[in-house]
Structures are given as C-alpha cells and as structure tokens.
C-alpha cells in the first residue's frame, strides 16, 4: 500500500515537473506584456486524449468545419502540427502607438504547419529555419519554426496617429483635411467620401469593375529582399490587370453600400468618386495578388500621387508603418532580441497555477483599459483608477468546474474595500436555513456605514482630477444629508435570500362568454393559477425605530395587517401575500405564512451542513443554486407545454450544484470563485462539458 502511495507521489511529481519544463514558451513572452492568456494543453490532454477529442462531438464538428473551409483533409487535431500537450499563449503588447495581439503556440511538427498553409494556398518564405507568412497588407504576420509559432495582429492607436507632430513626421495629411473630407457628407466635398471598407457602387458595368475592396487594403507590396520600393505606376501592365481582377473579386466578396445614398443624391459627387475610384483602384491593386511578403512600408510608394484622397493615402501609409513595426517586432522575437521575459515579473509568476487549464493575467486593469478605451472622450475621468493586476483561472477538475478571479487594488482603494468588507454575515441567519427545502441562497455582508462614508471618497477619486470643486461640494453635501452611522444601524449591511421553490395560488377573474343563439355576452367568473417564488429574506438591523414607524403607518393606512406576531402585506387583487417581522435584530420577509409562524414561534426546522456554514460565514458574498432541486417544481403553465417542461427538467437535472463566493480580502487583493459540481457518472469536467454541448445540439 505504502509502496503504491509513494510511487504515486513520485509519479505525479515527475509528471508535473515534466509539464513545467516541456517546451514552456512563457519565457519568450516579453516583460512588458499587458495581458497574458494561457491554455494548458498538457492538462487538457490529460483530461481527454487527443484521439478522444477527435472522436468527440465538438471535435468532429471542428474538424469538419476546417476540412470544409480549407478543402484540406485533417484527420485529427494533431495534423495541425502543434504540440497539443504543451502550453498555448495569447499576449498583448502595447506602446503609445500600436497594440499587438500575439498568439504564441508550441510547434511539434513544423512540416505539418507548412502543409496547413500550402493547402490553403498561402505562400510563405523560409529563412534560417523560420517561416514567414504575411497577409495581403501585412496586417497579419505569422512566423514559425520547429519550436514555436507566433501570429501577430497589430492595431494602430488612433490617438498617436492623430498627433500633429506625428502626422507631419510620418508624412500623413493634416488632420483638418481628413476631418473636412469626412465631415462633409454632402457634395461640396473636394474628396470623395469614403470611410473604412467602402465599395463604391456606381451605376454602369464599367464602374462596377473598378469598385474597390478597401477591406483588403490597397497596397503596393514589396518582395522581402528588395529594400527599395517600385512605384505602382512603373509596374508591368500585366500586374495591373491582375490587380483589377482582384478588385472585382473583392467587391463581390464585400459590397458595402453605405455611401450609395449620398452618391445617388448627388451626381457630381458620384462623378468625382468615380474618377478617383478609378485611379485608386488601379493604384491599389497594381500588385500581383499572389502575396509577396512585405518588409518595407508603402510609405515610400505613390502616396503623393495626385487625385488620391488623402484619407486613403493616410490609410495606406499607416498600414505600411504598422506592417513595418510588426515585421520588426516578430523578427526580433525570433532572433531572441526581446528585452526581458515576463517570467521576471513576480506578479505574473505568482499567478501561474499549473493546475489551471486556462489562465488570464492582466498586468494592470488601469493600463489595459487606457490602452483600449478612448480616454480622450472621458476627459480625464479615470473610471478604472485604483484597479491593479488581475487574473482569472479556469479549473477543470474531476468533480467540479471552477473559475476563480482576483483583482488587486491600490492602497487607497484597497483600504476602502477592506473597510466595506469588514462585516461578517449574521450567524442568526443560519438558524432559518433548511437545506432539504431550499433550492438556493444568496448572502452578502458589507458595512453600510463604511460604504456610505467611503463611497464619496471613491467618487472624488474617479472624477476628482476633472471636477474637483463640484465633486468636493457634492460629497460634502452627501455626508451632511446622510447620517452614515444612523443608516448603518437601521440596515447594517448583511442579508440573506433563501429561495425555496415556486408555489401556485388560484386567482379568479372576470371574463365574457357568448351564447350560441345570438352571441349575447355574459359575464362569467373564471380561475387561473399564478405562480410566486417561495422565499425567505433576512436583513440585519440594530435600530428598528424607523421600521416600526413605517409599519405603524402601513397598519394605519390598511396596507399592512397585524397578525399579532408578524405582519402581512397582501398582494393586491390576489390571495397572495408577503409576511414580515422583526426579531432578534433581524428583519424577516417571506412569502410563506407557515414559515413565518415557525420563525416567530421558534419552531423552525434548521438544517445546514458544514459546507454551507463555511461558505456563508467565511465570505462576504456567497451564493448557491441547485438546479436539480428545481426539477419538477416549475409549473407547466409557466413554461407553456409539456415538451418544454421535459426539456427544462432535463437541462436542470444535467447541471450540478453551483456555488459562488468571494473570499475575504488579503491585503489589497479581492478574489472570488464560481464553481459547479459535476453530476455523478461523469469522468471529469472537460468530458462533462463536451457531453453537454452534444446534448444541447440534439
């Protein structure tokens, strides 16, 4: 026995070290990556072998789809040439001018990847064992060798390219010119109106042929070895012709008729458009459509040609610059010229969890949001201020699926969060939980007083930089009007909602019947069933004076009925009612009179397991839902039809118990977790997820 135990430990240790060392590409990820996503192929293939995946329903679907799209014969996932038992990465690298979305994948068999590209008719070059593929305008660059594959999709930062000094340096047209040509939607515009993917459709066959597909942006592509660009004009007629063909093809693919109305409305503009389109098209597609990789930008190309809209010139220039940067970035990556590895960032290495199947790590939420959000529009209001590093992990385990997430705040915000989350759930709540009855619960604990005191401070931090005076006054007024302490006593900040199911009550209503004789109408009483959730809500309170007053007022106005030990608020025009009472510093609200009676009489049948106790009392937020317990409790009337009832019940019973909880703050880090148990009979979470997707398709 002991022997087996020891060898099992040794074995698993060996396996885990192997998994760590085997072709770990994370060291290649640059230290300044803003976000990194990891998918652990090793863990996944342990849960489900590649051959199992190929045979599975989603696996088959994926392979089928690929085979259809690329007219290639893929027997299985392994045919793509990747090392499926190693780690796959996505990372984002951003600077002031460009944001790179990079996919880094471990390669097992480069020849298979070569084949994948060749079969799709995509040409690539080979230099020093590194293959390079560029799409038509180099907005997609893929490099690979025997070890790894890097695919890069760059996105230009508009704010950078809009800066006047940058525009001047890069030879872009002045901002006003573009603004003018784009803002004038009407005829006076000197330049034809064209935004992103515009395919101009002007009447007449001839014109249609030169409609453009800016989508595959018009570019003069340069062979990789030639450093000097040849203006499009000087190229052979043959290649021009080919370019035109491409244009026609592109038009067919993506016709965009957005500007058509403007054109129709104004023949002059249409004519202008026609002319410049013709020029543009010839220029644009004066390349052989069979791709040659780009090295240099088209910034040197025919940008200064007359008759081309500055908008397109700029686009072309920008794409060229972007392509140049991206190509350099990828080359450096393979040449190992990267400065520092992400592994030198302790925050990243701390977030690495070898048990997690997938992980997303964000170096700083604030930085990432400022990299993506158009902050110019917010006028300096920093919504994400104070949010630091964050991560989310997915665990596919034998008995559960778990997703955890954590976010670290800066000291200011962290202290606010700590204060607000200091409160624990009222232990008395547990006395009114009966596990056999309940279907789910939701509980939260926070400090109302701290929240009300800290909230204004937080607001002033977000808006303070811009509206300092106004915010200052508003927050003072807030504190003046509210007595945080008094409110904190009325509603302390913790509460629990227990969901016990659904109950039905009969409701009568008036309708009309018609006699067959002469369709005379007759008033008749009919009945129908109304469904109401069965629940118990509990809220902690210290100072009940205000609530007592409210109740007294309600009783006086006959909205509330006093049943001696508890109160009743009837739902108008129905036999249903809500019941409430205040007892031992807890406000109880329930839809069930019997339950209320039990609470008042101290006869409530408590049943709560250690698991739930721990979840409820140990965390600031806890929720639980058991879909299985709901099976058969939803009235058919609510779903409409037996077939739907059956389907709903089937779905509900295939789901395991769901738990959500947040953990107490550790330092400035707030973390939470959602998990679902896997129903018995399933081997592991991954196989279970696959079986669900298959069921849902049926």
């Amino acid at each position, binding site marked *: 026995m002991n022997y087996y135990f020891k060898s099992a430990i040794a074995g698993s240790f060996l396996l885990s070290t192997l998994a760590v060392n085997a072709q770990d590409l994370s060291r290649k990820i640059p230290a300044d990556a803003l976000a990194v996503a990891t998918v652990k192929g090793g863990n996944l293939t342990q849960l489900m072998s590649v051959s199992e995946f190929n045979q599975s329903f989603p696996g088959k679907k994926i392979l089928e789809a690929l085979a259809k799209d690329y007219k290639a014969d893929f027997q299985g996932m392994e045919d793509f040439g990747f090392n499926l038992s190693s780690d796959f990465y996505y990372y984002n690298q951003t600077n002031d001018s460009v944001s790179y979305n990079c996919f880094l994948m471990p390669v097992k068999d480069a020849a298979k990847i070569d084949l994948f590209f060749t079969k799709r008719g995509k040409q690539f070059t080979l230099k020093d064992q590194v293959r390079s593929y560029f799409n038509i305008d180099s907005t997609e660059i893929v490099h690979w060798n025997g070890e790894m594959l890097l695919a890069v999709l760059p996105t230009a930062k508009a704010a950078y390219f809009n800066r006047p000094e940058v525009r001047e340096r890069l030879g872009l047209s002045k901002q006003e010119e573009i603004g003018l040509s784009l803002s004038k939607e009407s005829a006076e515009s000197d330049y034809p109106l064209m935004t992103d993917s515009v395919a101009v459709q002007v009447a007449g066959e001839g014109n249609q042929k030169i409609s453009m597909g800016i989508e595959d942006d018009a570019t003069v592509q340069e062979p990789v070895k030639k450093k000097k660009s040849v203006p499009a004009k000087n190229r052979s007629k043959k290649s021009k012709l080919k370019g035109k063909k491409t244009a026609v093809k592109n038009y067919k693919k993506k016709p965009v008729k957005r500007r058509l109305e403007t054109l129709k409305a104004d023949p002059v503009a249409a004519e202008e458009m026609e002319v410049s389109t013709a020029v543009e098209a010839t220029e644009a597609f004066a390349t052989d459509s069979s791709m040659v990789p780009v090295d240099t930008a088209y910034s040197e190309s025919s940008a200064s040609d007359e008759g081309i809209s500055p908008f397109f010139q700029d686009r072309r220039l920008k794409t060229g610059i972007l392509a140049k940067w991206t190509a350099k970035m990828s080359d450096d990556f393979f040449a190992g010229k990267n400065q520092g590895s992400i592994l030198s960032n302790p925050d990243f290495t701390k977030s690495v969890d070898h048990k997690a199947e997938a992980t997303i790590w964000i170096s700083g939420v604030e930085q990432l949001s400022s990299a993506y959000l158009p902050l110019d529009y917010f006028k300096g209001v920093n919504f994400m201020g104070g949010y630091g590093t964050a991560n989310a992990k997915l665990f596919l385990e034998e008995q559960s699926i778990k997703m955890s997430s954590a976010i670290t705040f800066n000291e200011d915000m962290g202290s*606010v*969060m700590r204060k*607000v989350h200091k409160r624990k759930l009222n232990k008395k709540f547990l006395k009114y939980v009966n596990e056999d009855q309940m279907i789910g619960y939701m509980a*939260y604990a*926070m400090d109302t007083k701290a*929240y009300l005191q800290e*909230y204004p401070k*937080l607001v002033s931090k977000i808006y303070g930089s811009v509206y300092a005076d106004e915010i200052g006054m508003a927050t003072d007024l807030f504190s003046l009007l509210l007595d945080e302490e008094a409110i904190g006593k009325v509603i302390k900040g913790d*509460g629990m909602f227990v969901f016990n199911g659904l109950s039905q009550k009969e*409701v009568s*209503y*008036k*309708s*009309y019947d*018609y006699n*067959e*004789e*002469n*369709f005379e*109408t007759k008033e008749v009483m*009919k009945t*129908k069933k*109304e*469904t*109401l*959730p069965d629940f118990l809500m509990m809220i902690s309170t210290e100072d009940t004076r205000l609530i007592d007053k409210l109740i007294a007022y309600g009783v006086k106005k006959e909205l509330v009925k006093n049943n001696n030990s508890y109160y009743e608020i009837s*739902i*108008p*025009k*129905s036999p*249903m009612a809500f019941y409430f009472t205040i007892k031992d510093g807890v406000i109880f609200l329930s839809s069930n009179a019997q339950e209320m009676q039990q609470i008042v009489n101290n006869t409530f049948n408590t049943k709560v397991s250690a698991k739930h106790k721990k979840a409820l009392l140990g965390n*600031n*937020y806890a929720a639980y839902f058991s879909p299985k317990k709901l099976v058969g409790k939803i009235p058919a*009337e609510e779903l409409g039809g037996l077939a739907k009832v059956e389907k709903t019940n089937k779905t509900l019973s295939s789901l395991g118990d769901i738990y959500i909880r*947040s953990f107490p703050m550790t330092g400035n880090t707030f973390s939470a977790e959602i998990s679902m148990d896997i129903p018995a009979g399933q081997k592991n979470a991954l196989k279970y997820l696959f079986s669900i997707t298959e069921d849902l398709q049926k």
Partner: protein
Amino acid sequence: MLAGDMLKRNARYFLLILVLCVFSSCFQIIEEINVANNGSGTVNLTVNLSASKTKVASLMLLDSVNGYKVPGKQKIQQEMEEVVSYLKNSPGISNVKKTLDFENYIATVSFAFKNISNINNVSQNVLKKMKIKAINNSSFSFNPENGVFQRRYIHTKEALVEYNKLKPEVKNVFKEASYTSIYRFEKTVATSSNPSAKVSKTKKAVMLNAGIMGLINGKTNISNQITLVK
C-alpha cells in the same frame, strides 16, 4: 463597491421583477355593434383586464415601470370622462354611458348612433384621445336598401413598428390578448365574407375572435361584408 451598487439596484427592482415576470398578463377587447334595419344602432366597447388584475394592481402601486408612466385611478377616470364628453358632442351620437370597474379592471363605453357612418370618425378620434396609435384602420357602412353591412379594415405597418419599439416585457402583454367583434342585426344574415367569422344559431349575429398579435402583425384580417336577407 460594485456589490453595493448591485444590491441597491436589486432592492429597487425586486418588486418589479416579481410583478413583471411572475404574474401573467392578458386582456380582452370586445366590440359589439347592434344595427337596426333603418341603419341606426348601438355600440358597446369593453376592455377587460381582469385576467391580469394582480399585475395591473401591482403596477398601479408603482409610479412608472421601465420608463412608462403608470396612470393612476384618477387619471384613468379623467381620461374616460374626456372620451364620454367627446362622444356626447359628436354628431349622430347619443345615450353615451361608461362604466369603470376598478375591482376587476373592466372598462366599458356604450352609445347609440343614428347612422353607422357616425362612428367612423369617432373611433379614430377616441383612440387618438386614449393615446393609442391607431391599429384600427377600419370603417363601417350599412346600406338599408340592399342590406349590406361592411367593415373595411386595412392593416397598417405602423402598428407593427410601434409594437417592435416596445420592450420584451411589455410585448408579452399583447401575446395572449384577444379581440372579439360581434355584429347583431334585426334581419337574418345571408352571407358573411370573412371565413374566420361565425354566424349565430339565430343567424342574426356574426362574431369574429382574433388574437391581438394577429392584428398587430397583419396576419389577421377582420374585414367583413355581411349581406342580410331581404
């Protein structure tokens, strides 16, 4: 922080969610027209929300729901009064009566007309007064000479456009709503052109039952030409 905001919002919407999702809703519109041989007659319009009275009552406790202002009892009464006084002043219309049952949420309006053409303008204007964008693009005519009663109805796309603007919760209200029209005559009915319409045993009444949805999306046609025996 987020949790706090969420809870506050939850508390506010707690009642709303209960009201909107839990209680079922449907309503009934009944239009009865009795036509005498000389072309005069009476109209009786009923709007019955009794089947969704729990929901209506709960909604009326709230000030507004999803941006829609919920009219109070007084406002409803006042608007009904306006409709009645408008009818009283309309040419050819007399004996205007209304009932409002706030226990069951049933409203009725009845009146007499000299000639059925009197009601053509009236119905349009009443609907306009009640701020209902006309889904009712119809006109009535009766020729005592040849005994032909006609209801012309043209579906307008506007109804569907307006309907599509509604939020899903509100759309649901219309899904089970029904419309019934009953025409009664002194003479017996020889033919009724609308295949969905039923003729009573006495052959002196014609009834058509339709879902409101069918009227909104134009799938149901309530036009009818009824010829009376001479």
